[in-house]
């Protein structure tokens, strides 16, 4: 026979449980719009029954509120985070590629390359061709030539600015990663403190998940959470302590947070002497692990995330850094290595057109990174083989300097990469495209101006000595402006043409010329008579235009100037195709990822989200249950009243 007052206790257990449940419902309702909040439910069960020693057996004793649990599906979390990484990467691509697309735009509203070159420059050249002797035609032509070069200066500067801002963003993303790592490590501790006491740290877990979600947009994440076992049991069974060990790895298993410990990344400014690409802005950041000093690279092919997107745009050279194989065995300690060029260019001239290495820089020899101080290149006149020799080799170190000499011996055929291969058409790629065009164009015009011929199929000596309009031109039509000294430096193709070799110290060679520093020779701008329009005596034969008509050919004839298999005037078509396709891809992938984010997000919400109707329903449900239980107590009260005050009295 159970206690006389047991009914009252049962009513009480109902009342208190539903009171608590209503609080949980209230909490859900309150957090209906809270980002990352997981729906909570009250876990309740019937209380343990009492043996009554009566004919009817066990008697129920009411209800017990066991725990408040959160509803969350970790599978969707995983899917969601994988997608966040892609979304992060493609959003960066989209944001920057749309800008690049705008820069190169040429339509009814913006004057771009086509307007300046195929319209203005072409028209000026045609007029010069018809009337080479008049000052207006010559001035007009120079103006058009100048504005083409200013276009390239401007474009290059814009891309460099963009590279700077990408670099800044890399740094702030890295700082964000560090901040998140620190916060997660601290949350791990708090969660364990709470959960050790046996209760679930729902709110803190939500916070942690939210941070991991954010991090997954920056880099790929991998989360493992295993219970910590109580080792004091010897019964062979596993007993959990109630705490967990939470590990967060990023970018292919690099542990960022392990329990309460966390690692940080640091951005180290790359030395301005050893740039990966000739066109890189100063202060490019390399990312290292602060603890071990190892280099951190999120660029592996299976990875994603906005940090990878940023690095791809900042360093992307379409996987086409200068490279080749070691030409002959080298012993450890050697300070120079010769490389056999294995790229697509067929002559030294073509290599120089697309060359994007600095005078000094970084080089990877058989997977070990070194720095070099200078280089020379040459083409074998009979076999056509192209070789580069890099001197002053020293192991690459994060800061400071290292003893010269290679660390390990090299065998013939070992791989050589100068700078770094990054498989994306990022800023270095477009800079190289512009440089390629500018170098070829300058070379053709200079050569026509000096020798009346632009063919460089063979490196023959000049066709005829210069004999120009009123003057002998000893300077090149285009020059490059030294960034540091501000000097205008003359170009001379003979640096390559005559002996098929070149070195990083040849200031007159065309690899020095870039879209950023190309200028029309200021002497010519000041005296329009200084450039050549005819190979005959220009003083007398004012209207002779043999030189001009050769310059016209540079524009339209792709055997005279071949830019990626097209004529020079098709530059924008070729490059804009790259940009348009890149942008289109970025847009498409971004919208796919956004769509997926929406879908997976909804799937997550399907489990963890709070629904208005459900809350309303719960409210009524649990209120009714509460009311019912209070009715129980009322009824019990009446029973006791009857029993105690009226029965047998």
């Amino acid at each position, binding site marked *: 026979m159970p206690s006389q007052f047991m009914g009252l206790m049962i009513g009480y257990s109902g009342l208190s449980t539903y009171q608590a449940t209503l609080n949980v419902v209230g909490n859900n309702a309150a957090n*209906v719009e809270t980002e990352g909040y997981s729906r909570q439910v009250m876990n309740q069960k019937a209380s343990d029954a009492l043996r009554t020693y009566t004919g009817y057996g066990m008697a129920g004793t009411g209800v017990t509120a066991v725990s408040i649990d959160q509803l969350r599906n970790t599978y969707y979390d995983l899917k969601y985070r994988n997608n966040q990484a892609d979304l992060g990467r493609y959003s960066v691509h989209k944001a920057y*590629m*749309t800008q690049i*697309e*705008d820069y190169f*735009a*040429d*339509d*009814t509203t913006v004057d771009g390359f*086509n307007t300046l070159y*195929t*319209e203005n420059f*072409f*028209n000026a050249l*045609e*007029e010069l*061709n*018809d*009337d080479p*002797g*008049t000052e207006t035609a010559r001035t007009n032509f120079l103006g058009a030539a100048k504005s083409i070069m200013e276009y390239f200066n401007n474009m290059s500067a814009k891309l460099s600015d963009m590279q700077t801002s990408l670099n800044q963003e890399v740094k702030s993303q890295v700082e964000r990663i560090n901040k998140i790592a620190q916060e997660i490590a601290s949350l791990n501790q708090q969660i364990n403190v709470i959960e050790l006491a046996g209760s679930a740290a729902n709110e803190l877990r939500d916070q942690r998940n939210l941070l991991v979600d954010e991090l997954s947009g920056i880099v790929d994440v991998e989360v493992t959470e295993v219970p910590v076992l109580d080792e004091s049991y010897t019964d062979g069974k596993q007993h959990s302590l109630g705490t967990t060990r939470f590990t967060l790895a990023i970018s292919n298993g690099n542990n960022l947070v392990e329990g309460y410990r966390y690692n940080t990344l640091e951005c180290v400014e790359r030395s301005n002497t050893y740039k990966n690409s000739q066109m890189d802005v100063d202060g490019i950041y390399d990312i290292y692990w602060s603890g071990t000093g190892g280099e951190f690279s999120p660029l592996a092919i299976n990875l994603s995330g906005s940090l990878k997107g940023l690095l791809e745009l900042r360093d992307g050279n379409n996987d086409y850094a200068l490279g080749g194989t070691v030409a002959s065995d080298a012993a450890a300690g050697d300070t120079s290595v010769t490389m056999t060029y294995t790229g697509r260019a067929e002559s030294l001239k073509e290599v120089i057109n697309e060359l994007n290495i600095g005078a000094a820089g970084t080089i990877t020899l058989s997977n070990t990174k070194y720095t070099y101080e200078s280089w020379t290149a040459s083409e074998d006149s009979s076999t056509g083989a192209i070789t580069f020799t890099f001197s002053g080799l020293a192991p690459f170190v994060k800061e400071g300097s290292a003893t010269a000499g290679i660390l390990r011996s090299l065998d013939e055929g070992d791989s050589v990469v100068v700078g770094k291969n990054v498989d994306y058409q990022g800023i270095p790629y477009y800079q190289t495209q512009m440089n390629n065009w500018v170098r070829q164009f300058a070379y053709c015009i200079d050569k026509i101006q000096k020798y009346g011929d632009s063919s460089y199929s063979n490196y023959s000596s000049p066709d005829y000595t210069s004999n120009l309009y009123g003057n002998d031109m000893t300077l090149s039509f285009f020059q490059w402006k030294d960034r540091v000294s501000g000097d205008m430096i003359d170009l001379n193709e003979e640096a390559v043409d005559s002996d098929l070799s070149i070195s990083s110290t040849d200031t007159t060679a065309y690899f020095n010329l870039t879209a950023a520093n190309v200028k029309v020779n200021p002497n010519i701008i000041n005296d329009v008579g200084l450039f050549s329009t005819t190979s*005959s*005596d220009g*003083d*007398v*034969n*004012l*209207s*002779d*235009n043999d030189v001009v*008509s050769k310059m*016209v050919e540079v524009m*339209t004839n792709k055997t005279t100037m071949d830019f990626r298999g097209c004529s020079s*005037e098709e530059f*924008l*078509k070729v490059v*804009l*195709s790259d*940009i*348009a*396709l*890149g*942008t*289109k891809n970025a*847009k498409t992938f971004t919208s796919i990822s956004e*769509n997926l984010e*929406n879908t997976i997000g*909804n799937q997550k*919400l*399907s*489990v963890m*989200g*709070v*629904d*208005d*109707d*459900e809350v*309303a*329903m719960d409210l*009524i449900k649990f209120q009714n249950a509460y009311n019912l239980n209070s009715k129980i107590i009322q009824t019990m009260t009446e029973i006791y009243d009857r029993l105690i005050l009226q029965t047998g009295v």
Partner: protein
Amino acid sequence: MRVTNKMMSNNTQYNINMNKAYLDELSQQQATQRKVINPSDDPVTAIRGLRFESSLASITQYLERNVSDAISWTDITQTSIDKAQELAREMSSEYSSASSDFNKVSDRSAYLDNLKALAKEFYQTGNTKNDNRYLFTGYRTSDSLTFSEKDIEERKLEAVNTSAPFKYECISEIFDKEDVESYSFLKGAMKESDVDDANNTAYSETSVKNIDVFRIRLAYDDIDSSQTASTGAGSTTQDVATDAVSGGKVSLTTTVKTLTLYNENGTSTGLGGPYTVNLIDNDEDAASAATDKAVYLNYKTGNLIFGDDVRSEIMEAAHITFGYNKSSWDAGDVKPEHYFCCYDTGSASKGTISYMDYQQEIEYNVRSGQSLKINTNARDLFDLGVGRAVDDLEEALNAVSEAEAKVAKLQEMLDDPVKYENTDKVQMCFNAAQKELDYANQRLESVISANITSSGKYYDKVNLAGTSCGTTIKRLEIVKNRLVDNYTTVETQASENNNVQLTDVVIDINEANMVYTSALMVTGKIAQQSLLNYI
């Protein structure tokens, strides 16, 4: 599956956003009339659009500048050629009128002056300019065809020798056997003093002789009496017609004061010469030419005189070259650099100016890859023979006038036997003078008849140049029409490629707007309602 309000609002938000993005794209298309706003929307169309734009730009350049400039150039050329043709015709008819009855020409000097004026006007036509560029002087568009007072004055300021500011050396003429003409001159004509002395000394008729020789007429008379070359200006080398056998260029060298014979392939092997000419100032000094094997150059009249032996050698040659110097130039003279290879050594500041090219073709690009020669070279039109024919006539007329004066004077002496009592002697002199007059008249007649022939030839030359210029104009018109067609075609294609069909866009916008509105309506309904509305 459990669906929460948040999920529904997420989905509707996503869909509404999609609708809005589409609506935005359409409204941008409508506002800009362009199919592609960013190249990445449709790379193929965008890149094709660029190609159309540059085609249109280049067609516009060709059409509005190159072709129209070329047309203006050739139109003016045509007008000048018409004028030159008119002058050539007039000269031709002047010669004809003289031939029908030369005696009717009462005032010979007026007749001659008229011809000279016509010839001068003829060459003056060659100074026509278009847009401040001389039309007939090849690439030397700043260089007039004839010397002007200004040219001479300007050169004097910096000339090596101010009395001969322009000194042309090795003016290199190339002749062929067609240029060899019969030529005759008087030998042993009475001098003025002989006439005066007729009463005392008889002059034998037999000593007045007509020497029949041959000549090649140079382009200029009054050339230098001294034919020595400055350093580096003694010879020129130029390419002439392509050799029919080898297909290569035939290269000829011309040397000052030397008549050189070349055969078809440009060698001198097996031919006579070269001849260093003898400089004379009076044809009579060349009297022995008929018999000796030498070439004489009368530097005053600009004739190369030689006899039959030399002629027969010349007739074997394909090309004959001769170089000479000339320093005396008057305003109105045709500049030799437009006709011949030569050097100008007269300038102190510029040194020796070489003129090694006189057939300069100005070509205008009229469409991509096609150029047309638009200029006419003076050499093909203004033959230097036109002026030289007048010189010949002047000389012949002078000879007639001189002989007539002698005859008249002797006639007077004959008519006055009282004063001039030695009638026999006077009569003999009279006969000699009469013979001279006969020869002179004979020569005049042959000069006039030669000039009638040559003026016809010169007229034809001008005519031919006119025809070829007319052909160029015709071709330019065709090119122009084709370019206009081309422009329209490309413009249509470009518009089809770049521009949207307004009706399509309007319909699309209406559709998109409808979808958008209904999406909003549904969303509004869903968002408003919840269970709370019913409890």
